[in-house]
């Protein structure tokens, strides 16, 4: 019952502080691609992969009182809608102790990046079934704002999180 919701709440809890809605979407997509047990369906939207299912799950968690949604100053951030765990949310998670392995280091690494960069990373991951060159060509055709140097950094970042993932929870997948 509600295991998928619990995994989302657990990830926010492990992050330790508030997390923006856009970053959370991108982080869960990245974790799913790394093989963690997130089952939300993502579609390609105009800023890369996006899950309507996850968006509704977040709203359900708020309606249950397990998450608190706040709005930060829109002039100071491009991700103003943020979530944090409530007391009721901590109680909720006490029912699901092992629902998600400890991914806090990996999470820090992901949320430390800008939204634009995470968009670039997730779009690349979206095309990971294509050859390296075809994936890059596809990204550059679809997202004209992404530069080749950003793509190079994104590819290096993907390698880095794969390495971190193998250290952090090698048996979790």
């Amino acid at each position, binding site marked *: *019952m509600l295991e998928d919701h619990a995994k989302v709440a657990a990830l926010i809890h492990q992050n330790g502080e508030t997390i923006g809605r856009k970053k959370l979407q991108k982080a869960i997509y990245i974790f799913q691609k790394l093989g963690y047990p997130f089952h939300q369906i993502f579609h390609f939207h105009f800023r890369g992969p996006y899950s309507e299912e996850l968006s509704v799950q977040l709203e359900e968690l708020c309606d249950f009182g397990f998450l608190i949604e706040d709005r930060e100053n829109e002039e100071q951030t491009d991700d103003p809608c943020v979530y944090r765990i409530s007391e009721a949310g901590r109680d909720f998670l006490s029912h699901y102790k092992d629902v998600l392995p400890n991914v806090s280091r990996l999470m820090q690494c992901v949320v430390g990046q800008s939204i634009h960069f995470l968009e670039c990373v997730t779009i690349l991951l979206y095309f990971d079934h294509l050859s390296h060159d075809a994936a890059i060509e596809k990204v550059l055709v679809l997202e004209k704002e992404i530069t080749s140097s950003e793509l190079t950094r994104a590819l290096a970042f993907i390698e880095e999180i794969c390495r971190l993932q193998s250290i952090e929870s090698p048996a979790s997948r």
Partner: protein
Amino acid sequence: MTRSFQKLNEEKVFKDPVHRYIHVRDRLIWDLIGAPEFQRLRRIRQLGTTYLTFHGAEHSRFGHSLGVYEIARRVIDIFKYRNHWDDSETMITLCAALLHDVGHGPFSHSFEKVFGTNHEEYTQKIILGDTEIHRILEKQGSGFAQRVADVIGKTYPNRLVVSLISSQIDADRMDYLLRDAYFTGVSYGHFDMERIWRVMRTRDDQIVFKLSGMHAVEDYIMSRYQMYWQVYFHPVTRSAEVILTQILHRAKDLYQQGFRFKYLPHPLLKIFNGKITLHDYLKLDESVILYFFQVWQEEADPILSDLCYRFMNRRLFKYVEFTPALLDAKDRLSESFQAAGIDPKYYLEIDSSSNSPYDLYRPGEEGERQPIQLLMPDGTLHELSQESDVVGSITGMRRTDCKLYYPKDRILDLPKHSPHQKDIQRLLGI
């Protein structure tokens, strides 16, 4: 460059209750409709288990797919008339409209939850794999099938083409809202589609709507809202969906435990083993699934036979609203179910809005979703809910619902004065 596609000697038409006629003038479209993978959609209902709530809802994904094609065809005609359309994209768009749902399996949503399949991935595989549809598409030139697949996958470079098939007001939603309202027989769900087409404009790579057509768009949004709550998320339909999901889970579990089925489900064995091929997938339709549900009522396993009996004879689960307090009681509830001889794994299930494949309109999420834009007289774009009080009033409303489903009849059939019955009734508040 616009290439020419072969026209039929004479136009073919399909009589359709929503669009009156569906017109086919291109050989390519006619051939795709005749392909076995497309004909299979006749055997897959558009609304899954909704026919158990609204008995008219027996319409198929075949009719819906033709409807989406017809809407795309008519909108393209309007855009062409206004010189807002690159004609070299026409056939790609029409093929994508026709084929956008071709990968749906039987009772798709439940099936995907249990077996981890994804109809969108199968749509891609059918268009790009070893199929009649792929062969028909590739006759138009190498790479044509890939372009159609990219439109459906929303990764086609021309975003206007993608918007026509998949956006907040697209050919897919317009057809299914009107078609589902017609077949369920509900009085809400209607809107003036032709008026919406007339006020559609193109702006850069998106479709926008003239301010003067705002009321037609409002009707569409209200239709979507009503259909969501009163048809797509109807609690009785959801109950049938829960039972269907539990049947598939039970059958898979039994197979993996080595249960000796009286009626071994040969077409499902590869999916039970997680090794299904495209060829195996294409053999599955709702006739196959319902055949097994019918005969499995005779299986020796009491859970499988009971769940199948419930589904086939509409003895559905009842529900209570799910609250966080119920979550605290879930362990005790499971224990009481177990003690009463009712396996909670199959007879106690939460269903929430996030399980539904349908959604409500919301005014974007800081750039994550493309909202509906109104074209103002001064040429600026305003998001719909900023201009429309009607839309503004429903977009902020709660869109979630969560229920706990259980077999009330089994609880009531427990021996009188059974402590488990009392416990369960108390915990569920019934």
